[in-house]
C-alpha cells in the first residue's frame, strides 16, 4: 500500500538530515528509496507541503530527543562539555540513528556505544566513558521492575535477625566495575582533573524499593557485607565467614539495618516459616 511510502517519507524527512538535504534539492523525483513507493497523486500532495513547516517540526523532534537523552545522561554531558562541543556530539549521534523508536533501553544501548566511539575518536579523557556507563546502569536498574519476593521471605513474624536466616539482596541490582572512581567524580565534579589516574572501582547499583525510578549506589570496597551478598544469598552464619572482620553483633546490626531499609530480604528456614506467618515464635 503506497500510504506506507507517505508515512515513510514524513518520518524520513523529520529524522534524517541527509534525506532532508537531498529532498530539498531534488524533490519527489530524487532517486531515494523512501520516495520509491509514492504514487503520482501522493507526490502531488507531498509537493504541496511547505517544507519550512516540516523543518520546524524536525527541529522540535531533535530537541525532544535531546531532552530525553539529557534526562538520562545529564551528568555525562556536563563533563563532556569541558572537552568537546556537546551540540556537535549530540547531532552526530542523532545522524547516526535516524530510524529506530526511542524505547529507553534501545536509546541507552545506542548512546553508550556512540559515546565510547566519540571519546576514542577524539582522544578525550577516558573517565567520560565510565560516566556514560554509570548513567546507563543507574537508569536501567531504576526503571526495571521489582523482582517478586521469594518464598518464606520477610514474614510478618520476623522480629530479629537470626543466624540461619538467608540474607538476599532485593532485586533488581547490578554490580558494575569501572576504570575510574566514578563516585568520586560524581561527588566532586570540579576537583576531578583532566587526566585522572584510573582507580578501578566496583559499584552495586540497587533499585530503591521505596521510591519508583530511583536507585542507590554503594561502593563495594566500603560495604563488605553488600559485596559478599552481591555474589549470592547467604545465611548470616555464611556471611560471618565471608566478612570475618565483623563481630557477630556488628554483622547482625548491619543486616538489620539493610533489612529495615528494604535493601535485603530475610528468608527464614522452611522448618520454622509456619510459626512466623502469624507472628508466633
Amino acid at each position, binding site marked *: *500500500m503506497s*500510504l*506506507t511510502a*507517505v*508515512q*515513510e517519507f*514524513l*518520518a*524520513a524527512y*523529520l*529524522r534524517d538530515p541527509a534525506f532532508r538535504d537531498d529532498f530539498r534539492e531534488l524533490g519527489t523525483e530524487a532517486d531515494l528509496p523512501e520516495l520509491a513507493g509514492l504514487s503520482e497523486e501522493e507526490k502531488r*500532495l507531498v509537493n*504541496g*507541503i*511547505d517544507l519550512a*513547516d*516540516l523543518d*520546524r*517540526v*524536525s527541529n*522540535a*523532534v531533535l530537541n*525532544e*530527543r535531546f531532552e530525553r537523552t539529557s534526562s538520562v545522561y545529564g551528568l555525562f554531558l556536563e563533563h563532556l562539555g569541558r572537552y568537546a562541543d556537546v551540540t556537535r556530539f549530540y547531532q552526530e549521534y542523532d545522524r547516526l540513528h535516524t*530510524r*529506530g*523508536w*526511542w*524505547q*529507553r*533501553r534501545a536509546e541507552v544501548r545506542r548512546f553508550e556505544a556512540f559515546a565510547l566511539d566519540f571519546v576514542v575518536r577524539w582522544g578525550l579523557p577516558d573517565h567520560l566513558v565510565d560516566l556514560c556507563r554509570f548513567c546507563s546502569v543507574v537508569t536501567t536498574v531504576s*526503571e*526495571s*521492575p*521489582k523482582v517478586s519476593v521469594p518464598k518464606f521471605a520477610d514474614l510478618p513474624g520476623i522480629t530479629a535477625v537470626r543466624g540461619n536466616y538467608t540474607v538476599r539482596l532485593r532485586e533488581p541490582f547490578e554490580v558494575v566495575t569501572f576504570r575510574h572512581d566514578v563516585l568520586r567524580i560524581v561527588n566532586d565534579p570540579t576537583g576531578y582533573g583532566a587526566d585522572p589516574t584510573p582507580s578501578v572501582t566496583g559499584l552495586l547499583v540497587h533499585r530503591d524499593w521505596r*521510591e*519508583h*525510578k*530511583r536507585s542507590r549506589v554503594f561502593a563495594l570496597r566500603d560495604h563488605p557485607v553488600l559485596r559478599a551478598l552481591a555474589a549470592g544469598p547467604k545465611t548470616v552464619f555464611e556471611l560471618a565467614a565471608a566478612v570475618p572482620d565483623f563481630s557477630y553483633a556488628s554483622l547482625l546490626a548491619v543486616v538489620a539495618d539493610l533489612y529495615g531499609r528494604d535493601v535485603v530480604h530475610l528468608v527464614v528456614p522452611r522448618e520454622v516459616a509456619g510459626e512466623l506467618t502469624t507472628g508466633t515464635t
Partner: protein
Amino acid sequence: MSAHVADPPVPVKPDVIGVGFLYHGVPEFARLYERLVEVGGHIDLVEFLAAHHHADPGHLADIIDSLGGVPSTLHCFEYMIGSVDRPAAATVERLRRMVELSNCRYIGEHVGVMGTRDRYSGTFLQPFGTDEQTEVFIENLKRDRDVAGVPFIIENQAQIYDQVGPRSVCEQVRDIAEGADVGILLSMSNFTVAERFHPMDRERELEAIPLERVWQLHIPLGSGAELAEPDNGRQRREQEWAHATAEQLFKEESFRPVSIVLEVQNAGTIALATPEEIRDGLDWARDLLGSGADR
C-alpha cells in the same frame, strides 16, 4: 482499499466518571498527590501515559493503590492507529497488561502518524486528510478494539503543516470517530501547540467536532506563578482561552463528556501547578461536569 473488517460490538459511552490529572510516572507526582490530599483536593480518575510504564507495567497497580483505587485512562500512541504498519505483538500484550493492572476504563489514542514500525517519526505527525488515510484509522480502530480490552477514544492533534487532502485536522477526527464509532478526547492544549508550527482556525475546527461524541477533555493547568511572569503572557492567554472555551462548550446541549483531565504541567512551563491550584482546578472542572449532567 483495505479488506473490510467485520464490525465488532460498539462501545457504550460510560456514565460520568469525574475529573483528575495526567500523572507522570515519576516520584514527584506521588508527592504531589499526597500534598493535594493534604489541602483537601481529591480526584475521581487518573490518566497515565503508556510510554512511561513500558519498562515496569506492574508499577501501575502500585500507583492505583496509592490513589485509592480510582479508575484510570491510558493515553498512548503505541497502537499506531494511523499507521499502515501494525505494532509488534509484544507491544500490544504489554498495553493489555497495563489496562488490566490500572483499572483502566478507556484508552486515549492519537489521531497522528508515528511513522512505520521500522522508522519512528519522533512525534505525533498530522496525517494526510485523505480518504485512504482516514480509512486506515477506521479499520485499525475496529480491528484493535477486540484486543485492547477497553474502548478507544481518539484525540485531535496539533496542525503542523498546510491541510493535505479534503479534511482538516478536526474534520478527520469527526470522520474517524463516526466511521469507527468511537468517542473523542478533545484536547484544548493541542490548539496551543499548533501555534508553534501552523496556527489553526480554532472556531472552524471546533465546529467540526461532533460534540456528543466527546468523552474526555484535556485542559491545561500550569503554575500560576510562572504564567504570571511577563515573558509567559502568550501561555497565560492560551490557558485562559482553553478554560473559557471549555465553559462555553458546556453550554451546548449535546456536550456531555464523562471526564476532564487537567494537564498540570503546562507545555513550556517548568513548574507544576501547586496543590492548591490543582485542587481548585479540579473543583472547577467538577462543577463543569456537573453542569452537563444536570441537563
